[in-house]
């Protein structure tokens, strides 16, 4: 059975190789090949899953070593896989959602002449992401980690003729690189401390390391997680990453890749459990990002950017839960999976709306779409109910558990974290209700399509008629079917996972689990959550449901304006990092000019001056030459005599 593991990665990798090297002759059926190989990966994953279910809880993990990658004396890196319950969860999520989004992309990218290349990149992403979650050592995980970063870069900048997309891709790549430095330093620290970076041995030898070392490793891992999962302070790239095609936003920047940081923290749970200081930092990062993303999401008028703020916020929940230790790991992963369903569904819905509205992304120019796009409306609506945590739907089960776990942290910390998560739930309800109302309800605020310019003519819109009002229509089957499947997941996954605590029992052998004991009853917390979300949704309804929505955004309060600018994150980066870097460079250049060049030029000038003076001795008069000859000879003779005398 374990021989199948490599095939999980090999199938999409083969697809990427064939599609990217195959050339134009594959244009006609390349997208089908990519989709079939993604589905093949899912089928293999399902086979392995049912096989795994047939074994006892502690014997479920499978291992496969393909070959020695870097066989050096004292340094052994293998291409080796580990498929345990945690990896299995990710494999099913990645290949499952990945396959659905491949299907969706067939319709969404139908009019793009580079569709084959798009599917090649998607397959490359799947291969790298599966490698990331299947690796049995940190070095191979790092390989996958970089692979998904590359795929993300290629896909954000897929419409590279748009300068904004090209810039966004570069930004994402650079910000991710900062996080990746953290991961590479963590691996080096592990190697120097433990002499290995394979998961099992590292986690067994933790007792031998000092707490300072463990804290350093854990903080470096957290830095990596912050970069990949768009957590404060490395969050600035996610909003701009929405420049990529919408299926990419759904797959990479909502459901899978951005959750890699949560995977890393959960996988390294043993290290974090032994490093309480770093764990506290994880919780703080999660809590800050949770509110940060939610506030940004409230102010954005661009539907995809509002959803991106929401993604950031929901991953903040997961990171917070992962930072709580064994009482939270399981719920972090559970929220990750349910979030994968509903957020991918929401993004696909947003893509469907954009498809119908001439690629308009400004929600102020939507309105009243529920009659024109019933399937999109219903699936998006179910995703909406799931993300705000409406009782009974997926988000309710997973988010409620995280809030309980936050309260169960105990002491003042527990109360603060609990309050933050509750507040976050309220803001989530507010901004998602706002998105829902502005898009599907109210009167039509549709605007004529802008004149098509050369830069936008290859975008995927079937009917782009400049100067005409859009004619919204339901999307084709290839797009609606994945949305319906994801909507099913959004509705039922949470209840399925919570039924008989099945998800807890499933993951417990890997991540360990402790029951948290919140200071107040679970029923009280659940009630509070529901009340808070009703308040949030109610405020949004009062603002956007009962009053008409202006087409141009009002000026808004100071906070709104700051949130529209992503809470000044780019300005902060610009002032502190860009300007700071410029000043540093300038002072270094000044030092180079004055000090280094000064020494070099000074030496040359003094040697030159000395030579000029020596040159004067050579005056051309034969008699003075004769004098120097006599003098020299006299000195030589005197010296010889002196030496002989001594």
């Amino acid at each position, binding site marked *: 059975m374990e021989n199948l593991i490599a095939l999980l990665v090999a199938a999409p990798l083969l697809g990427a190789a064939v599609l990217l090297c195959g050339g134009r002759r594959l244009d006609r059926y390349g997208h089908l090949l990519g989709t079939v190989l993604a589905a093949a990966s899912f089928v293999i994953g399902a086979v392995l899953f049912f096989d795994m279910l047939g074994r006892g809880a502690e014997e479920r993990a499978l291992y496969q070593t393909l070959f020695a990658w870097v066989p050096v004396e004292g340094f052994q890196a293998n291409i080796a896989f580990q498929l345990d319950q945690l990896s299995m969860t990710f494999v099913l999520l990645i290949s499952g959602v990945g396959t659905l989004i491949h299907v969706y992309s067939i319709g969404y990218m139908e009019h793009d002449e580079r569709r084959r290349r798009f599917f090649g990149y998607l397959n490359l992403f799947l291969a790298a992401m599966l490698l990331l979650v299947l690796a049995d050592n940190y070095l191979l995980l790092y390989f996958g980690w970089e692979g998904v970063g590359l795929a993300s870069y290629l896909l954000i900048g897929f419409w590279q003729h748009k300068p904004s997309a090209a810039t966004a891709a570069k930004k994402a790549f650079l910000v991710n690189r900062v996080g990746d430095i953290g991961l590479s330093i963590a691996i080096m620290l592990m190697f120097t401390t433990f002499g290995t970076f394979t998961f099992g041995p590292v986690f067994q030898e933790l007792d031998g390391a000092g707490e300072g070392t463990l804290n350093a490793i854990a903080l470096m891992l957290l830095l990596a997680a912050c970069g990949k999962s768009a957590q404060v302070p490395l969050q600035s790239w996610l909003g701009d990453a929405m420049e990529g095609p919408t299926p990419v936003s759904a797959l990479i920047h909502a459901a899978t890749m951005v959750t890699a940081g949560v995977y890393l923290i959960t996988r390294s749970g043993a290290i974090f459990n032994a490093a309480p200081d770093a764990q506290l930092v994880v919780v703080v990062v999660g809590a800050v990002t949770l509110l940060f993303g939610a506030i940004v999401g409230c102010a954005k008028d661009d539907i995809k950017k509002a959803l991106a703020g929401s993604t950031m916020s929901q991953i903040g929940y997961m990171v917070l839960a992962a930072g709580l230790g064994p009482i939270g790991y399981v719920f972090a992963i559970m929220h990750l999976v349910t979030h994968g369903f509903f957020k991918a569904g929401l993004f696909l819905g947003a893509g469907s709306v954009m498809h119908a509205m001439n690629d308009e992304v400004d929600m102020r120019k939507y309105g009243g779409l529920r009659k024109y796009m019933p399937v999109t409306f219903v699936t998006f609506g179910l995703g909406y109910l799931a993300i705000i945590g409406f009782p009974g739907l997926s988000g309710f089960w997973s988010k409620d558990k995280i809030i309980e776990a936050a309260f169960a942290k105990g002491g003042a910390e527990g109360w603060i974290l609990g309050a933050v998560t509750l507040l976050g739930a309220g803001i989530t309800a507010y901004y998602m209700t706002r998105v829902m109302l502005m898009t599907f309800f109210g009167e039509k605020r549709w605007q004529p399509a802008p004149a098509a310019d050369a830069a936008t003519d290859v975008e995927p819109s079937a009917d782009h008629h400049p100067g005409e009002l859009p004619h919204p229509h339901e999307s084709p089957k290839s797009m609606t079917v994945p949305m319906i499947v994801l909507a099913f997941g959004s509705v039922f996954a949470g209840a399925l996972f919570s039924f008989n605590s099945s998800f807890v029992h499933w993951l417990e052998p890997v991540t360990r689990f402790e029951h948290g004991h919140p200071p107040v009853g679970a029923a009280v917390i659940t009630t509070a959550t529901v009340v808070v979300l009703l308040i949030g949704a109610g405020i949004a309804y009062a603002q956007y449901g009962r009053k008409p929505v202006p087409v141009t955004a009002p000026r808004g309060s100071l906070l709104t304006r700051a949130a529209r600018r992503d809470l000044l994150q780019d300005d902060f980066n610009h002032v502190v990092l860009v300007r700071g870097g410029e000043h540093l460079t300038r002072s270094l250049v000044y030092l180079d000019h004055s000090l280094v060049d000064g020494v070099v030029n000074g030496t040359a000038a003094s040697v030159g001056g000395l030579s000029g003076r020596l*040159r004067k001795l*050579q*005056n*051309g*008069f*034969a*008699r003075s*030459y004769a*004098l120097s000859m*006599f003098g020299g000879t006299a000195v030589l003779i005197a010296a010889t005599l002196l030496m002989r005398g001594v």
Partner: protein
Amino acid sequence: MNPVNYLYLAALLFTIGATGVLIRRNAIVVFMCVELMLNACNLAFVAFSRMHGNLDGQIIAFFTMVVAAAEVVVGLAIIVSLFRSRHSASVDDASLMKL
């Protein structure tokens, strides 16, 4: 007579010659002073030959004379041609030997 006195004489002649080379401007006189230094050397060679009782010094003196004769040919030729081009035999006028 003590041969050392010849050495003193040789030293005296050499000093006179060297001083002449350094302070005189007329090329012919400088040239004659060079000859004086050579002959002072010859005198010293012969005196040493006598003191040590072998003939090496006397043979070297002959060599010196031959070299001096050759040098006179070349040196006088240079001085004559210098005088022809510059109408002066002063060594300080010909100060071209510099960068």
